[in-house]
């Protein structure tokens, strides 16, 4: 218990805790002690009682993917017939609708389609930028890594080309758990943890910001969660390019991994630990998509200061059997009822 108090004192003094200290706190501290520490830390970083959200839309340009991750219920293998590549008309309509609804950005992500090359992505970005003034948050590191390898270009060259074509920032998806023993089990064909980090390192070096995510609750152990956060924290020390961290729980329905879904308390504990461990990342996002409105609102007291996106459209998590939907009105009502001021933000967490 004395050891635990020492760790708590360190946190209260705004000192960094290491993996072992994080694990000890996670395993031994009372649920509300974690909440209280995370909540105080949240107010230390964000003394204003503001909770932000972004209005955007997920656009999945293709569901065809050669990766075949065991946790994914969204993808279709190439040549299966049910696959699609988005048409320009659909893309146009979706973006127009996003702008009409007050949206400021699109989250552009898709599968690792074996037949698409760099020209496709450049054309996609150019088309969007020619027609709309909208922020493109797109292509998670596994996609960038895939495109680079397919085009025999370096990560840096690939990013530069995509940036010139209109890409502004990188979503932190595909991180799952950044430990290769876990990645080999759940996503053997996707980029390694070092490759994931390298994409982010290069993107940050080119002045592109990104978020970071963590998908937990599949085959990892608790120490993997801390190894993951440690890698993110180390890279952030180096680049300061991460805007936010978004932990969310694996949704097992329709996937090949048969595990029990993580419970609300387990999610909130990991969320609180991410606020306490990631002392160099400003924003921690609640995941209403995986947790539902009630736990997302509760998350605002467990370290989260951002509600994520209103998500005019979301397909990937919905394929795994979760279909929470929240309108902008409902999202802002939840924030207000929790005693905070809801504020729309842009991709860089500037208030609009």
């Amino acid at each position, binding site marked *: 218990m004395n050891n635990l108090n020492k760790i708590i004192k360190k946190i209260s003094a705004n000192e960094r805790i290491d993996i072992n200290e994080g694990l000890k706190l996670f395993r031994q501290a009372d649920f509300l002690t974690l909440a*209280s520490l995370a909540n105080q830390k949240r*107010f230390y970083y964000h003394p204003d009682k503001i909770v932000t959200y972004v209005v955007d839309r997920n656009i999945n340009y293709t569901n065809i993917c050669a990766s075949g991750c065991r946790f994914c219920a969204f993808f279709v293998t190439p040549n299966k017939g049910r696959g699609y590549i988005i048409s320009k008309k659909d893309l146009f309509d979706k973006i127009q609708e996003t702008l009409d609804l007050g949206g400021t950005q699109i989250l552009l992500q898709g599968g690792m389609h074996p037949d698409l090359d760099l020209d496709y992505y450049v054309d996609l970005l150019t088309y969007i930028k020619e027609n709309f003034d909208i922020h493109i948050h797109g292509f998670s590191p596994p996609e960038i890594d895939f495109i680079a390898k397919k085009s025999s270009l370096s990560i840096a060259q690939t990013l530069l080309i995509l940036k010139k074509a209109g890409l502004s920032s990188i979503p932190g998806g595909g991180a799952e758990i950044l430990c290769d023993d876990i990645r080999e089990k759940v996503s053997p064909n996707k980029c390694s943890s070092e490759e994931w980090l390298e994409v982010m390192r290069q993107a940050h070096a080119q002045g592109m910001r990104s978020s970071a995510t963590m998908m937990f609750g599949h085959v990892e152990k608790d120490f993997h969660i801390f190894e993951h956060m440690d890698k993110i924290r180390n890279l952030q020390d180096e680049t300061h390019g991460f805007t936010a961290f978004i932990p969310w729980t694996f949704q097992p329905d329709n996937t090949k991994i048969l595990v029990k879904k993580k*419970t609300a*308390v387990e999610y909130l504990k990991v969320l609180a630990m991410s606020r306490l461990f990631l002392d160099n990342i400003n924003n921690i996002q609640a995941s209403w998509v995986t947790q539902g409105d*009630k736990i997302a609102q509760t998350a605002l007291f467990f370290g989260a200061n951002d509600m994520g996106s209103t998500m005019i459209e979301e397909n990937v998590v919905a394929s795994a059997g979760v279909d929470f939907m929240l309108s902008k009105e409902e999202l802002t009502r939840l924030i207000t*009822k929790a005693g905070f001021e809801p504020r729309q933000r842009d991709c860089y967490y500037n208030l609009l």
Partner: protein
Amino acid sequence: MAISFIDKRLEGIYSKVLNNSRLSKEDGIYIYETHDLIGLGQVANHVRRSLHGNKAFYIYNQHLNYTNVCKNRCRFCAYARDRKEKGAYTWSIEEIEKRLLERIDEPVNELHIVGGLNEALTFDYFIDLLKTVKKIRPKATIKAFTSVEIDYLSTLAGLSIEQTIQQLKQAGLEMMPGGGAEILNSRIHKELFPRKINHKRWLEIIRAVHRAGIKTNATMLYGHIETIEERVDHLITLRELQDETHGFSAFIPLAFHSENTKLAHIPPTTAVDDLKNVAAARLMLDNFDHIKAYWVMIGEKLAQVALSFGADDLDGTIIEERITHMAGAKSAVGLTKEQMEDMITKAGFEPVERDSFYNPKTVV
């Protein structure tokens, strides 16, 4: 335990709690007003843990809603039907028997029996109902009829409340749920359920039931048109009656669901309000042993969280919840014993399967 409050005003409430002094109406109102949800949770958790340690209770139960025909037609209800309306039903004694037998292999320890005020039923029906349940499930406890039904049954029987209770007790009634309290005041009564018994009568009947040696629960339906002050007054009214009778077993805050009711314009309660109601109940009701987080109404996920905000009981496995689901509840209609224990364990508590009177069920 030292608590670092973000809202320093909670320190006063916490020191009262530590000194075992009763919280005032003003304290109660402040509990609802504070934005320091975690500080409040920690105070409620302190009380909860000093009463029950690490235990979290649940029961393996079955609901029997014998009829949805009801002459009261309260504005907040999505369940009731008129006699000839589409979807109206009344279970015969044979139907009740069938439903009990369908699940006879399950280890059901309690039958929770409530229904509408159906003018087609006679007092004999209720006596038969209890006797039938007792015959088929002799070891399970019968927890049946709210005060509203008891009042109605006494007019059906032409007997006094006391005599009615005696008759029901002889037929097998052992405990009563806490429904029909809604918000115990005349303004809400007039606006939302004018045809149902008022708060004075509700309390009178509960008092008589407790005097007859039957334990009951108590509830509060929140999240409709009531004010914070009305909620706190409700809790204090229950606390005063409990001082007198000691007949209440558990208190259950009930989150209002508006879908398919006459109040459909009212948005659902949010998690913060749900958790505050659990914490407020734990702190204001210092003479109640148990506070339930009713997962049917607040969802399984939040009910699990509520175990750290003052609740010590997750109610039952249920399997076939009807009333709240008619009003749009998104929760499951039932949970298995395994799911219940898993939720509790993963919240850091020790699951205890109980009987109706909070005795642990020992594994045979």
